[in-house]
């Protein structure tokens, strides 16, 4: 048998190179992108800060010190103190926990629900698609922050509910995204091949459709963490998110709004933290997009 089959002449065949998986290739191209790595570094920095918050906080973030109200940055209080004399650095460090936790868990929730619905809509089409897509349309018809406020108003103002609200308003974004991707992936020939082998729907979905539909979700997910952090900050700013003694960056902004002129540091540093984190996620997301989907580069 072997002798009748002409040998292959491709040069790639003669040397045994390492198998390169699509993920490893993507990482390599991501690592080459300096801006993306900068974004990743910022994100990792804030994650570490959040994880080790109790160890690195110089003061208790809730402890008032009325003798040192609204003090500017100094050797004892690097970033100054707020209107109760609480250390702003400690509050920012502790606030990183909440802001990041909220960002990640909102997006995780949105991806889970959105992708499940989107995959079903894209894969099964027909009335399933119609019903799910119309639900998405309804959710998208409201201005998202207004919808979030309404949800929090119904559930009651606390951080947990703000988180749910932000997750809900992001569901249709992920749902639509993955639906459109699934629509194109399911027409690929390797899906037909899988069917012709006799594979059932569940296996086709989880082994073929899903892995090939995830890249835009990963990119969008990274960018959405940034948006979620801003949105939760906005809810907290409006008094609908974190409640005392809990603190997040949005609440810090809200608390300091009366002292904008006399103690600008109370506002600048939490604002800067939000900006930096969001910037980090955005840079990382852009890098991921370039790495995972080279076609979108132009």
């Amino acid at each position: 048998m072997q002798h009748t089959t002409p040998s292959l002449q491709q040069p790639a065949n003669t040397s045994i190179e390492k198998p390169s998986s699509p993920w490893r290739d993507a990482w390599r191209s991501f690592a080459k992108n300096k801006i993306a790595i900068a974004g990743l570094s910022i994100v990792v920095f804030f994650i570490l800060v959040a994880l080790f918050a109790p160890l690195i906080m110089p003061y208790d973030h809730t402890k008032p010190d009325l003798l040192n109200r609204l003090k500017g940055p100094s050797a004892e209080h690097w970033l100054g103190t707020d209107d109760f004399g609480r250390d702003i650095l400690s509050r920012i460090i502790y606030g990183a926990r909440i802001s990041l936790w909220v960002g990640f868990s909102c997006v995780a929730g949105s991806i889970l629900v959105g992708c499940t619905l989107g995959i079903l809509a894209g894969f099964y089409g027909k009335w399933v698609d119609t019903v799910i897509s119309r639900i998405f349309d309804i959710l998208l018809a409201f201005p998202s922050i207004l919808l979030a406020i309404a949800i929090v108003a119904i559930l009651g103002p606390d951080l947990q509910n703000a988180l749910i609200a932000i997750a809900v308003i992001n569901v249709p974004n992920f749902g639509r995204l993955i639906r459109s991707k699934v629509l194109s992936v399911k027409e690929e020939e390797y899906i037909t091949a899988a069917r012709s082998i006799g594979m059932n729907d569940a296996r086709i979905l989880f082994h073929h459709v899903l892995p090939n539909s995830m890249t835009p979700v990963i990119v969008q997910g990274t960018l959405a963490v940034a948006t979620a952090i801003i949105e939760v900050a906005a809810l907290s700013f409006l008094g609908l998110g974190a409640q005392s003694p809990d603190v997040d960056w949005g609440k810090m902004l809200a608390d300091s709004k009366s002292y904008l002129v006399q103690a600008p540091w109370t506002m600048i540093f939490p604002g800067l933290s939000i900006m930096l984190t969001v910037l980090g996620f955005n840079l990382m997301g852009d890098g991921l997009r370039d790495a995972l989907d080279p076609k979108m580069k132009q």
Partner: protein
Amino acid sequence: MKLPLLEVNQIKKYFPITGGILGRKVGEVKAVDRVSFAVYKGETLGLVGESGCGKSTIGRLLLRLQEATDGEIRFEDKDIQALSPKLLKKIRKEMQLVFQDPYASLNPRHKVEKILEEPLIVHGIKDKKERRERIMNMLETVGLDRYHAERYPHQFSGGQRQRIGIARALMTNPKLIIADEPVSALDVSIQSQVLNLLKDLQAEFDLTYIFIAHDLGVVRHISDRVGVMYLGRMVELTDSERLYEEPLHPYTKSLLSSVPVPDPDDQSDSEVLTGEIPSASNPPKGCAFHTRCKECMDVCKTSRPTFQEISPGHHVACHLYGDA
């Protein structure tokens, strides 16, 4: 008398054209229109025709990847359309597809090992060692190396990928392989390698092929019998030799005369077809080919010629022949 492995009787596939807000049916595309043929064990049946003539659709109908609108498909004397999902899975094990585009037909996120393993998993081979053994043997059978199992599709050339596609089709030990333009996406130098591989495999595994193509040279090289299709209909079906030596249907004649002859001094005029292929959503009345046929008669414009056996083993659908 040889037994047919697969018998196709008057199958039709009409795709509805919908329009308007309510998605009303406003017409239909007759992709496959009353086509009949049989495939005998061990032979290669070629299907040729221009693009859009329905030859690929036939391949998909045979595996029930699309449901036929009407007609009968019998595989080993079992009516395929009547099968339950469970039995259908069994039949699909016996019939496998090789795809045209080796770049699109392999999942880019799966290693070759997983691509070849899936048919075995789906068809219930639980022993991992046995699966691995069979994958390795199959890789060697199709002319690849064992270490290729660890690679991803994008690391292979087109010809190598097509070998992987063929290997995947063979994993379930099928009896019938439907090859849907398996070499038309490949370089000419690689085409012959893959064609020879297909021929070798046919001898080794006692395979029956339905070979769909638009390249008449390729089809002649590999087929025992050839069916010519035009606008969803089979117009001529006969032995490969006879078709190329004495084509009967005017469409086949012009098709064959359009094959370039590798001789610069060759002066014979090729019959160039004039006009466009009519739309399959609105095929001409009578014989579908009458709008472009040189020998068109009045009867061709009104009644559709039956697909009949003119001489033993030579079927034609044309008013010029037979008693119609």
